């Protein structure tokens, strides 16, 4: 197995389990799905305007679409009779369709396709090199995912306290003069940046799995935030490495195998949780 693929996957999974935690805790996991699909038109539009795909162009596209999508979803949710599920789904499918239209029409030259956005292929990571001058410093994917780890850590250290506050009890936060909407918006921008930098490496579905599954699994068995974070980091790294090894042995899609392994890990924890619950009920009687 290629060592660069290994590091990209591990870094990404670690960065995602630090980043996704507030999304899971505030019961907005499907926002990750929505944001990841909606970013497509933003990226393509920036490509159309600037004529190339660049790091900062993608960031600006992500920023803009992330804000727009969260505002639209909030707007729709605010109408009486419209449920959050429908609002989230309604917005992201239209954005995604717009992105596909742009790709197949005006922005034909952009090297992105529906396949690549949905599936991603981490096996291509070693091909895309990052060179400074003539010197090859490694695969671009490794550096991007390492950067994402640092970004996630910074976000966690700087905004962790207030985000915890907002995602556990937004009413209480509001009563203490913290506006949850602004913080959620900042968080959505952060997630959008995360997704836009990583989706080409592994595909949006695996990103969603990285952002949600290990955290959900460890939430089942941990009583406080610290343990939750440590356990989810461990789980993310463990299921990613087993997924990588399995994919290597069977010679199948790496992204798919990792996503599946994460799910299996979750269900192992769920059965442990349900057994423990049953046992504790029996003990009570």
């Amino acid at each position, binding site marked *: 197995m290629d060592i660069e693929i290994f590091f990209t996957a591990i870094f990404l999974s670690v960065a995602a389990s630090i980043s996704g935690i507030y999304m899971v805790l505030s*019961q907005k996991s499907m926002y990750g799905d929505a944001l990841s699909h909606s970013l497509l038109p933003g990226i393509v539009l920036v490509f159309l305007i600037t004529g190339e795909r660049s790091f900062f162009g993608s960031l600006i596209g992500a920023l803009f679409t992330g804000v727009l999508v969260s505002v639209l979803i909030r707007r729709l949710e605010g109408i009486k009779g419209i449920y959050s599920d*429908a609002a989230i789904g309604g917005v992201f499918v239209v954005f995604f369709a717009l992105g596909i239209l742009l790709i197949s029409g005006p922005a034909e030259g952009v090297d992105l396709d529906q396949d690549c956005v949905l599936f991603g292929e981490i096996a291509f990571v070693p091909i895309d090199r990052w060179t400074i001058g003539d010197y090859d410093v490694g695969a671009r994917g490794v550096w991007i995912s390492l950067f994402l780890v640092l970004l996630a850590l910074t976000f966690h250290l700087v905004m962790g306290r207030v985000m915890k506050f907002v995602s556990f009890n937004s009413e209480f936060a509001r009563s203490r003069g913290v506006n949850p909407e602004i913080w959620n918006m900042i968080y959505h921008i952060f997630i959008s940046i995360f997704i836009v930098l990583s989706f080409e490496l592994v595909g949006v579905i695996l990103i969603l799995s990285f952002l949600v599954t290990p955290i959900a699994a460890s939430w089942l068995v941990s009583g406080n935030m610290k343990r939750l974070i440590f356990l989810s980091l461990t789980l993310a790294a463990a299921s990613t490495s087993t997924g990588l090894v399995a994919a290597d042995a069977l*010679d199948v899609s790496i992204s798919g195998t990792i996503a599946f392994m994460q*799910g299996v890990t979750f269900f192992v924890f769920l059965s442990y949780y349900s057994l423990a619950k049953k046992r504790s009920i029996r003990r009570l009687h």
Partner: protein
Amino acid sequence: MFQEPNFLWVFAGSALLAISASRVGVFVFLQNKSLSGDVISHSLLPGMVIGYLLSGEKNFWLLFMGGFITGYFAQILTEKIIKISFLKADVAMAVVLTMFYGLGVVLLTVAEKLPYGNQAGLSAFLLGKAAALTNLDVGMYAVLTALILAFVKWSEKALITVSFDSTYAKAIGLPVGRINTLLTSLLTGAVVMGVQAVGVVLISALIILPALGSRLISASIRQMTSYAMAISLLMSAGGTVISYIYPKMPTGPIIVVVGGMLLIVLYLFRKKTNEKYE
């Protein structure tokens, strides 16, 4: 354009899909489960690939059955997670969706390595091919749509009661569990049928957008159902006409974007009286 047989088949096919999806979508919307269409559409990938692996060809009914089984199973798993743990629907959906889709992608790479011929088209097949609908597809869609509409008609009263107030439905002795099973099967059927035409992501649009749009302007369930049907027909008509005029544009995404524009219009003309009680 209207003499063109190909245009008519594409229009008929997408209209049938849109009608059945919107009919089921209204009830799904009322239960705040709109995103489960998305979960199902991603989760049927492994089943469809298994159906393909078993037969070695793209047989509509085998793929349909395979997709139906895993899509339905995914929905059951999602509900199970919500039932036995404190996790909410959003987490359960994200976990199940990514797991099944991951498995599907793995199986897809297995299928691509097999010796028999036309597997290359399989992923394209799963991303939608609305512009290539043939009279055969349309025939099968017609059968399935008739089935779905008949089931909805047959259980409409119960579905409405359960969707609005399941506690009340239970209290008056309706078999809530069985009715929900029926709704899940209908939803899965509509999704599996549509996914081959418009693709994994955009089939959710046919479920969600008509119900969402009609909710903005309707005051009763009867109105909501008929408006949703009208919106879905407008979407598919607009989409097929535009993609006929600009053949480079894929039909599925255009249908969805037309739906998005309709949504904006309906948002501007929404019934403000509904909001007064907020």
